[in-house]
């Protein structure tokens, strides 16, 4: 007897809800908490319906205090639960920085494994949806340098569900960033059943031979479109890789591709300085230095705060900039 796998076309935010529901159903210890995640179903509807289905003991509206949310989640995680804490926007995680930096990520080490913190912090992030100030920060690199934290970013609904479930099942803290610009902009097929996408593994969006383009999150569809346009005009072919996990990076995949192409473009929306581009270049320096034919090209945000929304289009990596960078990489 074979069972047909049920598949639906979901948006990314629906896939997030689906993952949460799957895990709430499967594992009694999973709880969801945060500001407005309960009755209201989250400001982006990511937790829609969960409060009604699982009740207020498992889907919890908390007071408005991020340090409180992360700090109590640490206690809950150590004492048998798997909390999934929502930060309403990534730009509001900063008050919780101390709890994340000095406790969530150090407890296993401080107690040699006696106490562990299997928690997930979810947060929508990134610019491009005309949100107010602070709502559009893209500071993923801040977190990749916190020892003890994994950082995961899906770019589509399928990955969102599989990566989120893998994050929830991970025995250690995971920061799960959801590119809000991609929340509803397109759908992908998502199996109804439970599945995981392994953390730490990048995915080829497109194979190619001449330039490696590394990106993640909302930049993936943008990059794919720019690459398509580029390839229509030029004979060179691009390999596009969605990194998906930013800590730990998938060094093997990066290395494999760079050894083949010798040319690299990195696309991200965070500021240039200290952004992930630097860490990726550093990994390439270690792993594939002698294969590089040209300096790595970067398409990033500026070393400015993300501007208010009338200017966010100028801030975000554009089609032109991506194509320009690919051309640059090929020009050496």
């Amino acid at each position, binding site marked *: 007897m074979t069972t047909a796998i049920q598949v639906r076309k979901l948006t990314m935010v629906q896939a997030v809800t689906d993952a949460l529901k799957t895990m709430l159903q499967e594992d009694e210890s999973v709880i969801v908490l945060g*500001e*407005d995640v*309960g*009755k*209201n*179903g989250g*400001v982006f509807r990511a937790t829609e319906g969960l409060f009604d289905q699982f009740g207020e003991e498992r889907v919890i*509206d908390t*007071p*408005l*205090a*991020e*340090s*409180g949310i992360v700090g109590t989640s640490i206690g809950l995680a150590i004492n048998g639960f798997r909390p999934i804490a929502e930060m309403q926007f990534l*730009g*509001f995680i*900063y*008050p919780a920085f101390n709890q994340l930096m000095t406790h969530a990520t150090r407890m296993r080490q401080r107690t040699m494994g006696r106490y562990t913190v299997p928690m997930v912090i979810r947060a929508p992030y990134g610019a491009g949806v*005309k*949100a*107010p*100030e*602070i*709502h559009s920060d893209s500071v993923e690199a801040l977190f990749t340098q916190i020892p003890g934290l994994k950082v995961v970013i899906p770019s589509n609904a399928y990955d969102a569900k599989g990566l989120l479930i893998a994050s929830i099942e991970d025995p250690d803290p995971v920061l799960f960033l959801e590119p809000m610009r991609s929340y509803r902009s397109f759908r992908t097929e998502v199996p109804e059943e439970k599945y995981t996408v392994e953390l730490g593994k990048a995915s080829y969006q497109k194979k190619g031979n001449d330039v490696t383009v590394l990106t993640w999150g909302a930049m993936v569809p943008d990059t794919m479109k720019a690459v398509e346009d580029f390839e229509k005009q030029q004979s060179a072919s691009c390999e596009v890789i969605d990194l998906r996990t930013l800590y730990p990076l998938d060094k093997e995949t990066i290395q494999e591709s760079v050894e083949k192409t010798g040319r690299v473009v990195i696309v991200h929306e965070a500021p*240039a*300085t200290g952004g992930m581009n630097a860490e990726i270049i550093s990994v390439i320096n270690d792993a594939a230095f002698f294969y590089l034919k040209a300096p790595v090209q970067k398409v990033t945000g*500026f*070393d*400015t*705060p993300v*501007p*208010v*929304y*009338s*200017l*966010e289009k*100028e*801030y975000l990596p*554009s089609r*032109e*900039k991506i194509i*320009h960078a690919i*051309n*640059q990489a090929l*020009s050496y």
Partner: protein
Amino acid sequence: MNMLEKFPITQYISEEGKTVHSEATDITADLVKLFYEKMLRARMMDKKCVNLQRQGRIGTYVPYEGQEAAQVGSALAVEKGDWMFPTYRDHAATMTFGHSLRNLLLYWVGRIEGGIPPEGKNIFPPAVPIASQLLHATGVAWAEKKKKTDRVSLVYFGDGATSEGDFHEGLNFASVFKVPVVFFNQNNGYAISVPMEKQMNSKTIAQKGLAYEIPSIRIDGNDIVAVYLETKKAVERARNGEGPTLIEAVTWRYGAHTTADDPSKYRDQAESDQRRTTGDPLLRLEKYMKNEGLWDEEWVTTMENKITNEINTALEEMQNYPDPSIDDVFENVFEKPTWTLDEQLKQHRSIKRGQMS
């Protein structure tokens, strides 16, 4: 200790528009008319913005309808030279204190200029990270104290904001250094979808002042006379070097948290609408003015016309405002841009101009 008894809601004018406090009579007819005019202006601006948002002419908007008495009454209680620290919802306060309507509209189309007050007006850009502004207000007021002026800070924040650590640290610093700041809480019952009962286990926000020995009062935030006179007292205390005050103004927002929010998800909107006929701050003042023989339909119509013109002019100015420029972003990270910014801007411009190498 029953905190509801210890901190009763102080009213000066009842919902029927009757004087219920001896000091209410200190209010002159001119002041009453000023109250009404400023509240009307605030409400008309709010309605305009909600409409503009529906038409897609401005972005996501944060309405304050229902909270006009709290914002206008308190804003009228401070003087030029004092400092105001609004949140994203306190435009009734800032426009009353002298902010430019054009800039407020610019704010809602995502323009930096929207955060900048007119010259000579000490207004901070709206604080977005909840409760963070309490510390700025305390720091600014502390500076005034150090400079030995008599200027004060007036800082706005919501019921939800009381849960953040910065609320606590702000009140503690203000109390320890006895700085001239008025903490003006608008308790509108909700932080987005979260009602006060889930936000805290205390029945009042005023009682939180007890932790810091900060004098606190709970007032009817829809009674502009109460708001004005009690804020004035707090401001005077601050000016006289007597330190901070915490005011809990109990109020209500009729509408959604923002235009992107659907309040029916978490509360009965019919009940909320019902309040328009009972607790409304403008209606209450209207009743009071009628009771006192101060109501004049013609005057109201004149006001409405004047305000409509003012808003339309501001809207026009906003629409005709020069296009935003990314240069403003680059130029204002540091006083002098670093080489990183210079290079990034140069490259940005070069690609924009299509001058690819």
